[in-house]
């Protein structure tokens, strides 16, 4: 893992779980596999602290453990999952747009707690929903549960691994074996739903501690309620990827084409395996049937759009055969490569200007070019072209190959070919993104620290006014308290708020780039 990624991991964990957890995680990240004692030694923390930190990390699915050959228990941190923590708001937003407010809260709760039982999730969601509606409306648990089941069925939420109950010799095994069968991964047991209901009824009915305890010790019920759930991030990534593709189509062609692609992607969700690089083939008729009626696009128009999409230079869809009126596929790998290229090009455009952008795209199109050819094709005067090209070369956006005519590598008898290596550039940009993201977090912390006193004051005033409101105090008294914050202080507060918002907003935008680059690199490995 690179230093900028480690730094970002540390910053993210520090912000969310505190310094101790962050330093334990960083020690772990440097070691790859590490047993508990060594970890405590390296980090200079007490064994107890390290244990607690590891518990937190395991709870949030960031650390797993395994037994090595010599019988040690080793811990592994999944740094990519730590980095994904900045993407949480986007997951929550996805759930909201797909399944509405209850789903949003379900995902939020699950993300905040890492792993949770169904019962707890539903309970907390109901509490928060009621709170949001200020008790005006009663939220039914069936609705929330329905949403939860929806999320599980669409694979957005999955079961956590749990200790295997069949392991008999618990004395021998020094470590619980965590596993979950693939069939059960996305299945909500019927008992879980009903059991929860009956338990709740009993508890509310009797209201005694003993009763609930009795139920918990009950054989079947206790085993069911030990099922924990977590968010399946790769499913969310799949959704985000599809969103990015739809957006690109909308921008390049038009809204209707985007709808056609959206329908195709929705179809492929059902038909294609998770992690497949190419969606399974589908016919025009299938797409037509899947398209919502309200768009009013006729089948002929869809056929035209299909042709348009497949003839586009980005090749959004490709035709694989003529059977069934034309079978079409969406090649995710190709599309993500195109998108990644677009993001890199945009970075060049913004950083170096449009002339460099021209040279960069020229190199991408023509692969290897000599200096002179670049000048001619791009129609940029030689002196300027040299300057621009060398600037990009200096910042490693462009690479150089030497092709000597003679074995002595004499410069006068050597061809110097410039080219662009997309893979390398995207790695470099990803590093830059991690660094930028870290910088933004540091800046945000810095701004809050600078204005700590003021923010604390506001918090106190808010707390006092809130309590006064509850006790029904005189409005004039309330005003008096509120006036404790002077107008310049108020101005400063709005400014801070504006700044933090701006930083948080760009963190999310930054994640957009990070996501595309990560997905591209992931797919590039999959071949």
């Amino acid at each position, binding site marked *: 893992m690179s230093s900028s990624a480690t730094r970002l991991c540390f910053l993210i964990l520090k912000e969310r779980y505190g310094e101790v957890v962050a330093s334990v995680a960083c020690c772990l990240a440097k070691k790859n596999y590490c047993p508990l004692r060594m970890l405590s030694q390296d980090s200079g923390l007490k064994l107890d602290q390290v244990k607690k930190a590891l518990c937190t990390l395991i709870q949030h699915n960031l650390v797993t453990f395994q037994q090595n050959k010599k019988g040690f228990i080793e811990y592994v941190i999944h740094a990519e999952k730590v980095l994904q923590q900045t993407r949480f708001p986007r997951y929550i937003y996805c759930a909201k747009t797909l399944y509405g407010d209850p789903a949003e809260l379900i995902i939020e709760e699950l993300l905040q707690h890492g792993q949770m039982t169904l019962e707890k999730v539903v309970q907390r969601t109901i509490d928060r929903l009621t709170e949001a509606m200020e008790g005006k409306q009663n939220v039914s648990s069936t609705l929330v549960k329905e949403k939860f089941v929806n999320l599980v069925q669409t694979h957005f939420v999955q079961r956590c691994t749990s200790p295997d109950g069949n392991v008999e010799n618990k004395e021998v095994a020094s470590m619980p074996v965590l596993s979950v069968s693939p069939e059960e991964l996305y299945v909500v047991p019927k008992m879980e739903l009903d059991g929860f209901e009956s338990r709740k009824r009993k508890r509310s009915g009797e209201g005694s501690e003993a009763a609930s305890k009795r139920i918990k010790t009950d054989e079947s019920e206790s085993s069911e309620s030990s099922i924990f759930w977590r968010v399946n991030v790769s499913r969310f990534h799949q959704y985000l990827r599809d969103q990015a593709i739809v957006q690109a189509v909308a921008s390049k062609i038009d809204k209707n084409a985007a709808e056609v692609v959206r329908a195709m992607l929705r179809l492929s969700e059902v038909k294609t395996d998770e992690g497949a690089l190419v969606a399974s083939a589908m016919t025009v008729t299938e797409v037509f049937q899947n398209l919502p009626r309200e768009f009013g696009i006729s089948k002929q128009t869809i056929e035209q759009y299909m042709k348009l999409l497949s003839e586009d230079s980005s090749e959004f869809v490709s035709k694989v055969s003529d059977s069934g009126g034309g079978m079409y596929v969406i090649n995710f790998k190709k599309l993500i490569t195109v998108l990644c290229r677009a993001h890199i090009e945009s970075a060049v455009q913004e950083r170096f200007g449009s002339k460099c952008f021209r*040279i960069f795209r020229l190199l991408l199109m023509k692969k290897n070019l000599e200096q002179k050819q670049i000048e001619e094709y791009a129609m940029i005067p*030689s002196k300027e072209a040299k300057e621009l090209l060398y600037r990009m070369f200096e910042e490693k956006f462009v690479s150089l190959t030497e092709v000597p005519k003679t074995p002595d590598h004499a410069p006068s008898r050597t061809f110097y070919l410039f080219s662009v290596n997309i893979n390398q550039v995207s790695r470099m940009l990803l590093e*830059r*993104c991690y660094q*930028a993201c870290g*910088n933004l977090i540091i800046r945000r912390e810095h701004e809050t620290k600078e204005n700590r006193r003021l923010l604390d004051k506001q918090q106190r005033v808010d707390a006092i006014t809130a309590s006064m409101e509850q006790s029904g105090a005189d409005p004039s008294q309330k005003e008096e308290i509120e006036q404790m914050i002077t107008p310049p202080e108020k101005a400063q507060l709005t400014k801070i708020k504006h700044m933090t918002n*701006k930083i948080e907003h760009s963190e999310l*935008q*930054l994640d957009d780039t990070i996501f595309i680059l990560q997905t591209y690199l992931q797919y590039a490995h999959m071949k």
Partner: protein
Amino acid sequence: MAESANAPVKQEPVDAVNLESRILELCMEFPKGLTDAIIQNSMPQFDAQQRVTAINRLLSTGQVDLLKSSTGLVYKLKDSAAVSKVKGSDHQERLVYQIIEAAENKGIWIRDIRFKSNLLLTQVNKILKNLESKKLIKAVKSVAASKKKVYMLYNLEPDRTVTGGAWYSDQDFESEFVEVLNQQCFKFLEQKAALARDSKADPMAQKNAAYTSSSDVWKYISELGISKVQLSIADIETILDTLIYDGKVERTVVAAAAGGDADAGQLKLYRAISPLIQPTGLMKTPCGVCPVIKDCYEGGAVSPSTCIYMKEWLDY
């Protein structure tokens, strides 16, 4: 001919003139070179001595050239125009003139003249100056290397490779001119695309309506009258290519209708396209465009918490 053969010896001067003109005629018949044997065969009545004097006279007056070939010595007719131009000049001057003439409108570099003529640099310089003052040749600066001068005949139009074509004036690349053309071409294509979008036709027709052939663009640019020089369709195509590299335009090639204005039965069509994405997220943060990001770390001279770019951005 028969008369001259029968003529008595006293008419020798007339014969000598006759012989010279006959040789010139023969030279015209054999443009590849005239050997002594041919002259002897066609005019057996003259003896060797007479032939030698005649040829010597022709050579000294510069009407024929004596050249060495694989078959021996041959005589060739000298270019009369060249002769008239370099009249009154010496051998060396004539030689240099011929070398320059052979280079045609590509021109020739002074060093190459020296190698070909085997003359000294000072001599060549002097001769070139002479020829230049007589307006027989001219020096043209090449765009390939600004210091390199090439020489060619005065009346010739320099080749594209020397002048750089329409994009150069006095060895300077007219980047502004190219920029203006680039913008105008794009404007034209974009208008066309906008018209196609507003036409409310079906998507395929919209796409096809947005396509414009390079000759149409050329006509539009010519009518605008931005350019003082006459541009060719190929020139416009190079401009359109830069738009492709800019990611603003797409090109497709279709088979042209018979008798179309495109060459090789192909028609190049261009259309304006919209970008795939908005500017990427990284570039919306100050760090994306930061010139000193390499030196940026906590506690360093440049650090995120003291960053002035960040401050400006946040205050904005």
